[in-house]
């Protein structure tokens, strides 16, 4: 448990101000970890995201980055 806590985890991060809320990312996420909130922008559930990067590769606006989060 301790080790896991110190580990840096890779998670998707959406630049929400630039998001067009198209939902392309939602369709490719294997974990259901990304959702479009009320037609405004995409939101990542960091508890579910495994940082696989599929959404980042799919996003037609290229505004998702996979970054390290210290959890």
């Amino acid at each position, binding site marked *: 448990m301790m080790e896991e806590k110190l580990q840096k985890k890779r998670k998707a991060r959406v630049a929400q101000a630039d998001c*067009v809320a198209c939902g392309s990312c939602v369709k490719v996420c294997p974990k259901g970890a990304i959702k479009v909130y009320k*037609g405004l922008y995409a939101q990542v559930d960091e508890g579910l995201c495994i940082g696989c990067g599929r959404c980042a590769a*799919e996003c037609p606006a290229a505004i998702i980055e996979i970054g390290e989060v210290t959890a």
Partner: protein
Amino acid sequence: MKKHWYDYLWIFSATYLILGFFNILFAWLGMLCFMLPLLIAIFGGSKMYCNLFCGRGQLFSLLGKKFKLSANRKPPVFLHKKWFRYGFLTFFMIMFGNMLWVTYLVGSGQRPLSQHVKLLWSIKLPWQWAYHGGVAPWVAQFSFGFYSVMLTSTVLGIITMALFRPRSWCVYCPMGTMTQLICQAKKPKVKK
């Protein structure tokens, strides 16, 4: 990922484009692609249409991924910038208004029916083979005009699908921009 019935709506979009080559009056069916997203945004406060149902987005996805027609490059940054998206929406609406105006002129007899499809707002393509008469001239004129809008946006979408990522059109799609604006207007002002 599990497929749902709505994952096949690209068939509707493809059929729509093909029907326009045989009978232009089918263009009216495209009103669904105009009314549904707006109604869902206005009453549902979501972009459910883009997110799940839009066959056009699915079509670009399919062409880009299954058929590997997309270069899969990141699009230029300006494509998702607000000035570009709102600018394109404005331009699109002006051209749409112009199309309605022409429909009105034909309806009131001030202009003859023009049996053309206008591609990219400038290239006039002869299209008389797809019109077989039987309706009021304005009904036919609207069909030609509306189909022009649909074909133009498909062509633009295919170009950006090929050059950039499959669903690049969705970044500057006027309908997508409009529904997002509606959702923004509906959102209670809490966060920035």
